[in-house]
């Protein structure tokens, strides 16, 4: 080899090495999430904090946020993925099943098994859901709405939180009959309001009436949908009775979540459901904003006992309905999982749950943390790990009680993931059920028509679904 060739070869190798060095040092990850946008300075700052913390641990990643609109996020994400643009880390809020079927979502089971943090951060329902559907990870407590009311109203009525179905009805009646909102008129406050469907109410009344799960065995020992059982009928009769007495909002069907909340804050309704402990604290804050100068607290009402039992509704563990996924096509799966694993660690949770030092919390010389008023504007973008504890209580006692209930009352449901062939049946039966439930409650249909509802439900796909359920449930 001549000197010239040797020089050329050396230069070329050096140049290639120089080009390769930065790529080896830093891994670029593309991440798409409804709650992370480049236009939100807090989002960008959190990502920078995550990158810095990971780098300090020896993982150098450049996380690039892919902006998608929050409105219609699931549709926009689906279209983006279909066009072949598949980020490394994706947050799904529906539409993931089709992507999993197409093989673009990574099976997270082996990754979680060897994880340093995630496996310890999971909630019990996460473990079940991942076993059934290992493509989505959503480390959050289960969402089981729980009822709350103004504590001062409960005190004014001289009542204790209701423990039974009958006591709930008595409480709603007392709210309705008293002039708690002080407008000089009695009988114009609803005991309870809701929005859209009865799903919120079902969260505490299902078990009370014996609706123990999505599938129940009938007298012959065959699996049937709980929606066509006598227990369900008894529960709906109770709802209808409340509505007939003007104790439950007959307009729940047309209410939106903001209308529901507005009725609560303005005293048109006494009890509403909070979908999570954090939401209960948000309700408290908004209630205080609506009544300046009054230190209003909310009281958590327990799941009542009834003819069928007691407890929060069984939690669907068939799969996560939303959550994080890693692209199976990603060339940087290690780094992508490292980001998720870090977010489940104490350091990651500190960033994600407590916000920024000096803005959302302050730490004094002794290390004691105090949350500022700004903490109410902060929300976790990634996880709510089961094993993370805030150095200072992050939740109010009422919200903390709600969280404790979620832990102690957890019962897994027997719902399962439907094959794509059953999608039309699931959709049709859901339509039939929701429509009849609303008609029963508003009085448009009588319970004498129950058999007609059951026939319609079965014809819309209920029978076919029950046949399939019998093959899945043993």
């Amino acid at each position: 080899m001549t000197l010239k060739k040797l020089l050329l070869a050396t230069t070329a190798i050096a140049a290639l090495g120089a080009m390769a060095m930065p790529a080896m040092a830093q891994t670029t990850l593309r991440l798409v999430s409804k709650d992370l946008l480049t236009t939100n300075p807090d989002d960008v700052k959190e990502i920078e904090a995550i990158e810095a913390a990971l780098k300090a641990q020896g993982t150098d990643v450049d996380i690039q946020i892919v902006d998608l609109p929050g409105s219609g996020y699931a549709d926009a994400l689906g279209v983006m993925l279909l066009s072949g643009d598949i980020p490394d880390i994706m947050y799904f809020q529906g539409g993931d099943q089709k992507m999993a079927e197409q093989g673009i979502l990574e099976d997270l089971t082996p990754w979680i098994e060897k994880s340093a943090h995630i496996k310890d951060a999971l909630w019990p329902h996460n473990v079940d859901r991942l076993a059934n559907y290992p493509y989505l990870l959503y480390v959050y407590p289960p969402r089981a709405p729980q009822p709350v009311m103004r504590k001062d109203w409960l005190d004014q009525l001289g009542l204790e939180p209701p423990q039974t179905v009958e006591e709930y009805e008595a409480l709603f009646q007392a709210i309705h009959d008293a002039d708690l909102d002080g407008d000089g008129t009695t009988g114009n406050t609803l005991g309870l309001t809701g929005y859209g469907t009865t799903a919120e109410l079902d969260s505490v009344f299902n078990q009370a009436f014996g609706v123990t799960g999505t599938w129940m065995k009938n007298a012959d020992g065959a699996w049937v949908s709980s929606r066509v059982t006598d227990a369900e009928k008894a529960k709906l009769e109770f709802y209808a009775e409340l509505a007939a007495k003007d104790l439950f909002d007959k307009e729940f069907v047309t209410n939106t979540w903001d209308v529901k909340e507005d009725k609560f804050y303005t005293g048109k309704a006494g009890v509403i459901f909070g979908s999570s402990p954090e939401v209960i604290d948000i309700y408290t804050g908004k209630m205080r904003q609506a009544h300046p100068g009054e230190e209003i607290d909310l009281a958590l009402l327990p799941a009542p006992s009834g003819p069928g039992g007691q407890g929060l509704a069984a939690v669907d563990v068939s799969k996560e309905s939303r959550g994080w996924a890693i692209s199976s096509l990603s060339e940087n799966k290690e780094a992508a999982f490292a980001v998720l694993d870090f977010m489940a660690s104490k350091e990651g949770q500190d960033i994600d749950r407590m916000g920024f030092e000096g803005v959302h919390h302050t730490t004094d010389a002794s290390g004691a943390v105090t949350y500022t008023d700004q903490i109410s504007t902060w929300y976790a973008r990634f996880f709510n790990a089961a094993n993370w504890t805030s150095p200072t209580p992050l939740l109010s006692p009422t919200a903390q009680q709600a969280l404790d209930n979620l832990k102690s009352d957890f019962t897994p449901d027997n719902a399962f993931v439907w094959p794509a062939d059953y999608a039309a049946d699931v959709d049709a039966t859901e339509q039939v059920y929701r429509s009849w439930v609303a008609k029963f409650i508003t009085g448009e249909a009588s319970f004498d028509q129950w058999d007609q509802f059951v026939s319609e439900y079965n014809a819309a796909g209920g029978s076919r679904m029950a046949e399939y359920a019998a093959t899945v449930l043993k």
Partner: protein
Amino acid sequence: MVAKDKQRIAIALKHGNVPAHGSGSGMGSEPTSTESELASTLLASRTGMREKVRQWWPYYAMMAPGLLFFFIWHYVPIWEAKMAFENVRIIPPNIWVGWKNFEVLFSSPIFYQVLANTLIISGMKILFVFPVPIIVALLLNEVRSGKLRGAVQSAIYLPHFLSWVVIAGVFIALLSPTDGAVNQVQTAMGFEPVNYMTNTGTIRWVLVVSEIWRSAGWDSLLYLAAIFAIAPELYEAAEMDGANRWQKIRHVTIPGIVPTIATLFILNMGMFLSADLNQIINMQNAVNASTIDIIDTYVYRMGLSTGEYALATAAGLFKAVIGMALVLVSHFVSKRLTGKGVW
């Protein structure tokens, strides 16, 4: 020169919209005005595409963005409609499945209910919504005070700029059985309150009325423009014949806007199976879902939300074929009855 060319020259001379040609001609040149010049222009245009483009390039240039838009957004997707016959794979290639997606669609337990809802709602809209802008335009044309007409026009155009989310909120509040204005009036008159939004017998009428409220004013613009284009001499002649206002409307105005009515009716028929997804989604709730669930909402729920794009495309293609058939039928019926069609 053929008779057809003579006719075109006559039309061009009448409307004065013939571009200049020949050396030194351009956008700023004086338009030709004699029959011989026009004749040579037309003859030259027959010599070939290149010559045509050279002669009429300013018009082609103005038309180009529109053509490009239609090509990209309306013609390229026609080719992609083949997705309806495929199992769409994010990792290519797609798998050809023939009519399977259509079979899934047509075997769905509620598809025929959904199709029936679509036909009923679309039929009601054609029957009750379509004539309203025509009536509004006729009424506006009769308002003699320019200021009053302007004020009325501004007021009735406004709802067109509101989104269906807002309109649905307005109607839900307005029709609330407890504190809605409509039910309060109804109760004051001794009637029982009705929850119009959840009553399966009334919800379709809510769709019709809200559609009229939103679009009648704005849609009357086209008819109003057509009315203004009617030659004033016709009205003068009618007046000389002793026609009163009603007779002028009946014998001059309405016949004058029949071509516009026919064209818009035919175009509306093409959209017959699109009963307005936005409106329905915002007005839909658990009770009325089975009554106003239309093809578009079904496709959105079953196709787009779950990532079943092939199924959604199959439903879209089904709608398009029906729409095309309706356009053709309407066109030929209109030709037979009024002599006017879309071409």
